[in-house]
């Protein structure tokens, strides 16, 4: 398995785990109180920090399992990476548009903050799933 693919599996697992943890925490509270009273800021910060730290740790472990492959990437890796990032960027832009609309209609800051958060996480998820799919199926940049 190419290092970039391993790296994408790390992103995928970490994104799902942090999203599940934050989502569970937020939804549990949303069921019992109004959204304006939900304690979401600190959990979101923890979630973002955990996402970054776990990705770094995961990539270090992935590199340590096969150090010779860790610094190797070729034209196909670069093309797959660029394609996946483009898909991720579309998702982030879509999420940013949702956040913009929420701001325009003066929605509670809970919704705006979470729209931006989910855009970022879904962007990462979309990019990693696209790259993993490209590694396993036919891939042409044109």
């Amino acid at each position, binding site marked *: 398995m190419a290092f970039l693919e391993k790296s994408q599996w790390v992103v995928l697992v970490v994104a799902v785990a942090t999203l599940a943890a934050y989502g569970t925490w937020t939804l549990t509270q949303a069921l019992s109180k109004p959204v304006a009273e939900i304690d979401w800021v600190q959990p979101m910060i923890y979630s973002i920090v955990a996402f970054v730290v776990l990705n770094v740790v995961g990539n270090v472990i992935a590199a340590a399992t096969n150090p010779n492959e860790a610094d190797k990437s*070729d*034209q*196909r890796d670069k093309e797959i990476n660029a*394609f996946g990032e483009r898909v991720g960027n579309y998702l982030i832009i879509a999420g940013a548009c949702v956040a913009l609309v929420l701001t325009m209609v003066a929605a509670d800051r809970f919704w705006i903050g979470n729209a931006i958060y989910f855009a970022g996480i879904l962007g990462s998820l979309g990019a990693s799933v696209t790259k993993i799919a490209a590694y396993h199926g036919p*891939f*042409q940049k044109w």
Partner: protein
Amino acid sequence: MVKPTHVTNSIRTLRFANGEMTQADLADRVGVTRQTIIAIEQRKYSPSLEMAFQIARVFNVRLDEVFQYPDEQG
């Protein structure tokens, strides 16, 4: 993006004709990962023209002896 390439290749045959060269050996000589050689062999990825020439050079054959583009596109 998801269709297999129409470009066919004889890399597998050429590897065996060249002392049963492994995919890893070919990858090292071309300067790509083994996964890329596997993807090219399985027609999941079309290499750039430059990479195609590098592969042909390893086998010391013409480009069209490694890669073919049949008239009938299925």
